[in-house]
């Protein structure tokens, strides 16, 4: 009886410690693995897993100029922070830049551009803002005034893709990194299955795309869970601008 009680008390104590260090009290259950983990181990593991993805997939080479697609949202802000940290810690030897697109949507883009400008200062990464107005002579607000709210997403999507490429060319970078995460990958796979788009389905989860084009793009967060991207800055106590898709 005593032995059983002793064992269960030990088990209780064991359950209350971080699975990684077995020393500190856990702060969360990792969405990716369901393991109980303390703050310190969480950000170590989060950062080092991304480092491993970068290494295993040979995403970068020393001396490369890399533009980080920065919208001011959670994924791109965390990407900018983590890439600049890993670049410094593991000496990737990269020249990092922030590249932001201004579609000219009043009340939407203004706030997130402020966040990216703050990031420029906080992380010491040069920022380039490319606007639809400069590139195409139209802001999204102006486009919507002419065509209404039905097909404007199509225009914006096409413009944005080109704007990123053009911005990257202006910066003379070798690659573009975007903050697409594991949840985005899963959504894309499901979307393409539902659409029956076999061609896209075979390509949509590549970690590097557009290698035959002018500016290849990569997704260092391909295996990173969205929930962990949200928790990470909270644990580190830094903030970003958010847009709820309600």
């Amino acid at each position, binding site marked *: 009886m005593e032995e059983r009680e002793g064992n269960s008390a030990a088990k209780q104590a064991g359950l209350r410690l971080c699975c990684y260090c077995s020393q500190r009290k856990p702060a*969360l259950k990792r969405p990716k693995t369901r393991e109980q983990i303390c703050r310190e181990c969480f950000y170590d593991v989060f950062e080092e897993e991304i480092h491993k993805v970068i290494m295993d997939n040979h995403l970068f080479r020393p001396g490369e100029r890399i533009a980080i697609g920065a919208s001011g949202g959670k994924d791109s802000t965390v990407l900018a922070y983590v890439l600049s940290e890993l670049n410094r810690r593991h000496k990737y030897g990269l020249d990092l830049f922030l590249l932001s697109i201004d579609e000219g949507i009043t009340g939407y883009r203004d706030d997130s551009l402020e966040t990216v400008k703050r990031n420029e200062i906080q992380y010491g990464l040069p920022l380039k803002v490319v606007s639809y107005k400069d590139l195409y002579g139209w802001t999204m607000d102006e486009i919507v005034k002419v065509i209404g709210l039905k097909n404007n997403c199509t225009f914006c999507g096409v413009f944005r893709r080109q704007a990123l490429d053009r911005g990257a060319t202006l910066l003379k970078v070798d690659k573009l990194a975007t903050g697409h*995460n594991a949840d985005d990958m899963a959504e894309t796979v499901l979307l393409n299955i539902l659409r029956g788009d076999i061609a896209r389905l075979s390509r949509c989860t590549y970690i590097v795309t557009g290698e035959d084009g002018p500016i290849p793009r990569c997704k260092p967060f391909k295996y990173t869970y969205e929930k962990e991207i*949200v*928790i990470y800055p909270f644990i580190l106590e830094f903030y970003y601008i*958010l*847009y*709820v*898709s309600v």
Partner: protein
Amino acid sequence: MHLTLEFGGGLDLLCQSVKIHEVDVPLMSETGKMKMRDLLAWVRTNLIKERPEMFMKGDSVRPGVLVLVNDCDWELSGGLDMELEEKDAVVFISTLHGG
């Protein structure tokens, strides 16, 4: 019971754009204890002014909403059945937004 509630990830939009709420929640049960499920019901009735379906689904928070109590994941402490204490700080963060 006095609690500090924080709404992040855009959830503050459901509470008249107020991120932090210092609240006094009346104890419903005879035991004098408050479970998380009781707090959620109270929040839905008293703090959520629009689109409650963005915050809750049934008894619990909507999938995609993280709950931290005193900076610890509520899943570590029993989730809905977790007991709250005086002056606890509860944070609700939505992960459902653009990146």
